[in-house]
C-alpha cells in the first residue's frame, strides 16, 4: 500500500486510540472506587466504556502499532534516534492504556476496585505523551 495511505490510516487509528484512552482515563479517575454494589447509573456507563475499549480503542492501538512498524520499515527509519525515543513513548503509552483497561475491567466487576494512584494523572500524561510523539514524528529533530 502507498506510504501516504498507510500514514493516513496510522494517524486516524492513533486519534481513535488516544480519544478512547482519554475517555477511559477520565472515567477511571472520576468514578469512585466502590466496596459495595455499583449504583444503577454507574454500572451501565462502566460497561459501555469497557465495551468501547474492547471493540474500538484496543483494536485502534493494534492498528497503530502494525502500521507504525510497517511505515518505519518501509521508510528505513529504524536506525533513527527520534524513532527509538518515539517507540519508547508509545510503549509507555500502551502500558498506561493497559493499566486503564485492566482497572476499568475490575471496576465494572462485582467486587469494585480502587484505581492505582498513577491513573489519577492518566489524562495529562496521555496528552503530554501525544505532544512529544507529534513533535518527534513531524519535526524528526534528530
Amino acid at each position, binding site marked *: 500500500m502507498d506510504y501516504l495511505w498507510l500514514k493516513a490510516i496510522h494517524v486516524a487509528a492513533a486519534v481513535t486510540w488516544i480519544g478512547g484512552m482519554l475517555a477511559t482515563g477520565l472515567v477511571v479517575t472520576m468514578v469512585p472506587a466502590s466496596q459495595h454494589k455499583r449504583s444503577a447509573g454507574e454500572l451501565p456507563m462502566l460497561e459501555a466504556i469497557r465495551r468501547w475499549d474492547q471493540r474500538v480503542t484496543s483494536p485502534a492501538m493494534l492498528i497503530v*502499532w502494525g502500521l507504525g512498524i510497517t511505515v518505519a520499515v518501509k521508510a528505513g527509519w529504524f536506525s533513527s534516534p527520534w524513532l527509538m525515543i518515539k517507540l519508547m513513548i508509545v510503549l509507555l503509552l500502551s502500558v498506561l492504556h493497559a493499566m*486503564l483497561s485492566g482497572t476499568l475491567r*475490575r471496576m465494572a*466487576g462485582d467486587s469494585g476496585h480502587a484505581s492505582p494512584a498513577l491513573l489519577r494523572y492518566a489524562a495529562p500524561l496521555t496528552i503530554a505523551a501525544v505532544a512529544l510523539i507529534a513533535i518527534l514524528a513531524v519535526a524528526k529533530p534528530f
Partner: protein
Amino acid sequence: MSASSNHTLPQSDRSQERGQLRRMRYVSLLEGTTLVTLVFVAVPLKHLGGYPAATAILGPIHGAAFLFYVWMLSQTISAGDWATREIVRMIAAAFIPFGAFANERALKRKEDAMAVTV
C-alpha cells in the same frame, strides 16, 4: 494473584479473571514462538545461510508480538493482586528463549486455582 485473594472475588469476577489469564497464556505462547523462531531460525539463516531477509521479516513480527505481550501483561496485572516476584518473573522470562513457555504453565496454574470454588 495470590490464591487467598482469588477466593475473595465474586464468582462473576473470577470467571472474568480466568478469561483474561487464558488470553494471556495465548499471547505468551505467541511471543515465545516468535522469539524462538527469530533466535533459532532467522538469525542462523542470516549469519550462516546468507539470508538477511529472514531477520528483516521476523524482527518486526517479534517486536509486535513482544509489544502485545507487554500490553496484555500490564492489563492482566492491573486488574489483579499480583506479587512483585510474579511480575518480575513474567517480564524476565519474555526475554529468554523458551521462557514464555514456562510462563504459560504458570498462568495455567493460576487459571486452574481461580476455578476452585469455596
